[in-house]
C-alpha cells in the first residue's frame, strides 16, 4: 500500500471552518487558509474570491517543505513560523501540529503582533480537531465507496 489516506469528515471540516472564520475576525485579517503539508487545500475564510487557493496551497507546502529541509541541515526540528512582509499585503505562515499549515494574509488594518497572538489560539484548536480526525481516519470504512470502482468507471473518467 502507498500511504494511509487522509479522510476529511464533515463534522471536523465544519469545526475548522468555524475556527478559521473566528481567526479572520479576531486578527483583522484579509483571509486565512488551512492547507495540509502535502499541498492540499483544506479550508479558507475571509476575502478569498480573487485568490487562487490551489496554487497558494501548493506553494505554501513547497515553502514549508523547503524550510523544513533547511531546519534539518541545521539540526533544528522545524521552523514553525514564517513571516513575509510586502508593501500592502503580509503573509504569516504557521505550521500546526507538524501536520497542517495555517496561512494568514493581512494588511495595515492588522499587525504582526495581533496576528501572532490570535494564531496561537487557533493553532491549539486545530491541533485538537486534526487529532480527532486522524483517529477517525484510521478507522476502517472512511470512504468505502471506492472499493467498488470498476474498470469502466476509470475509463469513463477519460472519455470527455
Amino acid at each position: 500500500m502507498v500511504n494511509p489516506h487522509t479522510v476529511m469528515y464533515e463534522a471536523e471540516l465544519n469545526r475548522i471552518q468555524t475556527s478559521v472564520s473566528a481567526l479572520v475576525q479576531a486578527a483583522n485579517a484579509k483571509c486565512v487558509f488551512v492547507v495540509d503539508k502535502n499541498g492540499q487545500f483544506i479550508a479558507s475564510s475571509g476575502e478569498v474570491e480573487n485568490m487562487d487557493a490551489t496554487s497558494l496551497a501548493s506553494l505554501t507546502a513547497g515553502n514549508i517543505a523547503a524550510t523544513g529541509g533547511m531546519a534539518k541541515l541545521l539540526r533544528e526540528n522545524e521552523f514553525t513560523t514564517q513571516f513575509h512582509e510586502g508593501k500592502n499585503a503580509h503573509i504569516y505562515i504557521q505550521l500546526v501540529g507538524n501536520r497542517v499549515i495555517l496561512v494568514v494574509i493581512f494588511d495595515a488594518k492588522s499587525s504582526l503582533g495581533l496576528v501572532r497572538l490570535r494564531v496561537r489560539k487557533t493553532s491549539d484548536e486545530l491541533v485538537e480537531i486534526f487529532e480527532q480526525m486522524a483517529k477517525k481516519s484510521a478507522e476502517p470504512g472512511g470512504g468505502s465507496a471506492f472499493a467498488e470502482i470498476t474498470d469502466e468507471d476509470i475509463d469513463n473518467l477519460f472519455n470527455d
Partner: protein
Amino acid sequence: MTFINLMAREINCKIVYYGPGLCGKTTNLQFIFDKTKPTSRGKMVSLATETDRTLFFDFLPLELGEIRGFKTRFHLYTVPGQVFYDASRKLILKGIDGAVFVADSQIARADANEESLDNLRVNLAEYGLALDKIPYVIQYNKRDLPSVMSVEELRASLNPDGVPEFEAVASDGTGVFETLKAVARLVFLELKKSGA
C-alpha cells in the same frame, strides 16, 4: 496519500514526474495544460530558473470528472532533474500517490536515466516507499530524435519488472495523455485495493 474530502465529495491524488535533467518532464505538464479545457484545470505553477530549468517544481492541478459521486482531482508535479537539486527532489515526493519516470531515449543519456531511476528508489525509501509497491509507469521520451536506444534496450535497463511503458514525443504530445491515464488508472486501482 490520497486526500479524501467527504464533505466536498472530492478525492485528491498526487502524481510526480521524475527523470533526468532535460528528459521532458516539464514538457509533459505543459502539453497537458495546453490541451485541457480551462474549466478542468487550474494554473500551472513553474518554479524555474531563467533558462527554464525546473528549480523546485512544476505544479498542475487537473480535474478528471467524477467517480462514484466523487470529484477526482489530480495534482501533477515535476521534480528538478539536475543532479545537484537532490534535496528539493526529495521534498516533492512527500505524499506521492503515483510516479511517472520519464526517460530520455537518447543513447547519450543512458547513464543519466539509470542514475535518476536509482535516485528515485533511494528517495522513495526515505518515505518508507518502494517503486514496485506504488502506482508507477515509465515513459520513453524523445522518440523523434535520431540517435536513440531501441525500446528493447530501454526496457532492459530501466524496466525489468515490466511496468506499463509508453513511447512519447512530449514536445508534440505523442504518448503524453496515454502515460497520464495509465498512472491515474493504477492510482484508482490502488485506492480500490486499499478499500479506502
